[in-house]
């Protein structure tokens, strides 16, 4: 269509430049986290808490990366045009999935060690020999299969992440054909199939099997809903940050794009609440001991407060904050709601993981926070590294110009 637009494409987005500030902050964060984690690792009493804390941090960065990969795949699947200008940010987080895979290695090593049974009770052969239910589950819950599943999941996720990011980055150099865009569209539908199955079983493995007696068919959808909210919050924060620092160039991301991010965030906040309510209500109403003990533990003692806070942080506040139309185009509002939602994801994962460690009341100490700081620091380090090398917008996408013209 517009020749001038095409020629001045490179002026639209400034070339990548160093992100010294971000990188230094990430280095400090991960250094503190690593120091705390190492301290805990060499102390017998702290090591158990470190294991849980590490899993907490790991699942958080996993949900950020995989949720972003889902966002990328979804945009190709539904042939969205508006999202072309924000898709690179999601691709960046999706590309970090290999780092997430690396950070899974310590968990796996821990599982193979003697201490692993403190994290996943089904690893303890002595414990299993007294538990008829766990014996029945052994064909699924055993270490070799657990490790093989994780390897397969990560291989698939890394494969798709590399595919989507590389094809998109290829277009930056110069647009010669629509071939990469068509290829990504074609791959997006099979990707969704793979994503649904792997995400579900990964959440069974890494979260549900912490309490190996408990089961819930909706659990995979529950983890998925929180994952998407997390990815949307991260994409929104990063996009607004890039825009205000001038890295995006002027007029690339407008009100319409922010509005759509806000709408999606609002929709998935509601979706999470819907799934969470469905799970809670049905277990509460059925009230059979096979499954209700999981909720009873979380609604007694100090945990009651966390359960209530979860509903407020993940649903009530963001719902009200994002309800109005003007809120969804207000960068300040979007920014703090997104930060709030990231805190909500950490709280949700804490709620899922930690009652196994502290059944009576929630406890949060440096042993749990250390590994979270470290893994989040590494993720931010990856982001700064990516932004120094690549454009923050996929200017070479064939639909880039059309995406720029999106308004509401």
């Amino acid at each position, binding site marked *: 269509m517009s*020749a001038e637009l*095409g020629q001045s*494409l490179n002026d639209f987005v400034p070339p990548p430049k160093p992100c010294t500030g971000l990188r230094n902050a990430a280095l400090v964060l991960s250094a503190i986290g690593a120091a705390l984690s190492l301290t805990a690792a060499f102390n017998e009493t702290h090591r158990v808490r470190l294991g849980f804390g590490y899993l907490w941090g790991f699942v958080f960065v996993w949900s950020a990366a995989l949720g972003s990969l889902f966002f990328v795949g979804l945009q190709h699947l539904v*042939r969205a045009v508006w999202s072309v200008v924000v898709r690179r940010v999601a691709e960046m987080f999706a590309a970090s999935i290999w780092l997430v895979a690396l950070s899974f290695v310590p968990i796996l090593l821990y599982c193979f060690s003697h201490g692993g049974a403190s994290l996943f009770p089904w690893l303890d052969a002595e414990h299993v020999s007294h538990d008829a*239910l766990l014996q*029945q*589950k052994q064909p*699924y819950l055993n270490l070799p299969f657990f490790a093989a599943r994780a390897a397969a999941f990560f291989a698939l996720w890394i494969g798709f992440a590399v595919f989507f990011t590389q094809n998109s980055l290829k277009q930056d150099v110069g*647009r*010669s*054909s*629509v071939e990469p*865009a*068509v290829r990504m*569209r074609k791959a997006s*539908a099979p990707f969704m*199939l793979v994503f*649904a*199955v792997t995400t*579900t079983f990964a959440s*069974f493995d890494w979260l549900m099997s912490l309490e190996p007696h408990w*089961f*819930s*068919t*909706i*659990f*995979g*959808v529950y983890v998925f809903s929180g994952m998407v909210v997390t990815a949307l919050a991260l994409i929104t924060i990063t996009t607004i940050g890039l825009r205000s620092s001038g890295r995006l160039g002027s007029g690339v991301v407008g009100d319409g794009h922010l509005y759509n991010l806000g*709408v999606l965030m609002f929709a998935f906040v*509601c979706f999470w609440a*819907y*799934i969470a309510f*469905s*799970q809670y*209500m*049905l*277990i509460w*109403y*059925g009230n*059979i001991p*096979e499954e209700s003990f999981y909720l009873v533990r979380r609604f007694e003692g100090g945990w009651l407060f966390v359960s209530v806070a979860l509903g407020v942080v993940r649903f009530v506040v963001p719902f009200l904050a994002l309800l109005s139309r003007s809120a969804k185009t207000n960068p300040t509002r979007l920014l703090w709601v997104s930060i709030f939602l990231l805190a909500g994801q950490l709280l949700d994962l804490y709620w899922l993981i930690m009652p196994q460690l502290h059944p009576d009341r929630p406890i949060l100490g440096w042993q749990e926070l250390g590994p979270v700081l470290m893994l989040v620091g590494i993720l931010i380090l990856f982001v700064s590294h990516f932004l120094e090398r690549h454009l923050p917008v996929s200017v070479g996408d*064939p*639909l880039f110009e*059309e995406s720029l*013209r999106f*308004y*509401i």
Partner: protein
Amino acid sequence: MSVDTSSLAAPSLFVGDVTLRKLDDDIYRPLESFPTIRWWLAIAITGTLAAIFVLCAAYTVVRGIGVWGNNVPVAWAFDIVNFVFWIGIGHAGTLISAILFLFRQRWRTGIARFAEAMTVFAVICALQFPLLHTGRPWLAMFWLVPYPNGQGIYPNFRSPLEWDVFAVSTYGLVSAMFWFTGLLPDLATARDRAVHPFRKLVYGILSLGWKGSNRAWSHYEKAYLLFAGLSTPLVLSVHSIVSFDFAVSVIPGWHTTIFPPYFVAGAVFSGFAMVATLIIIMRKMFRLQHLVTDNHLELMNKIIIATSLMVGYAYAIELFIAWYGGVSYERYAFLNRALGPFAWAYWIMVTCNVLVPQLLWFKKVRRTVLLMYPIVLLVNVGMWFERFVIIVTSLHRDFLPSSWGDYKPTLIDFGLLVGSFGVFLTLMLLFCRFLPTIAATELKVILSESQSQGGGHE
């Protein structure tokens, strides 16, 4: 940039040279001309079926619901299966009119009106079954609706059946109002085109004095957006609450947490299949293939396969967790579904809902009416059987083998099932005869946009 991006562009929503004038003529022709012989033939058949429904319903009321096959332990059977089936059919209409509107999917305009009408009629059909099951439908109002009364007797608010009363009636009312609001500008067009004074009067009253002024349009747009926003949670809530009817109990095979989203996906799946089934006939009958194009069908087929996979996901996860959970009753319930006396129903369900729709991965199948039509027909069958499997197989064998039982539907059961299709199709035929089946005004907006090559919207 010399790259040709046309292969990435959104599909065209019109075939051939469509003008505003021609568009009106095509859409309003069925309203303004004497019905064709095919229409009379069709309504003769569906009317007969509807009469069968009325007869069977009357027989049920006179003799009592003992004329149905339901009996303990299978206390719910065809009646509730049909209820859930028809409620599900309506979901495509609300999804198209509300959710696709919020997603700014412009292809929805071609099929929205038709699907919304289906929603309203499907809810009407659905409501008959629980009402008949009360035995004395004329008293049902007093049993189902809470009102202050001398005896101080209220319905049980803790029962999901009572929630259903609220959910379904809200859904029916909002869907009807949404549908009618969308119809207003088109009814005004029908009035303006009318020659006979009686037609002018009737359409004039129905269009509520619509003048097409700026103010009216701005109110209309706002109302439409609000309706879309309100209907979106309704799409999810109605079938979620229908799923609660089963899931809050502790019956093996019913009590599982994935039920709410699984039922919603299934409802959209069956609804889209029914829209496709009927709109293909409608566009042929009234020669509207240039407005409801093969591109529309392809997009609908994509939604059908997406929801088919969601339903398949739920089947698989249910099976896995039944094994993983280790509860022997739950394990047996699923074993019994797949291998028990009703295994044939289970395998019909799996084949029609998960296996056959996989053919829609092929573009050629999605775009060829002759290839896709058998698939959507089978989906309709499969989704009816899904409810049959859930309801009947779980009830006929639960905890104690001494209280197991069998189930056989009676002729009246079949009469009501077939008859409800008669009621539904008769209403659809009347709708096609008296109201514009395609949202003409909305389509004009898209038409003028696509002709001016403008990029903006809303």
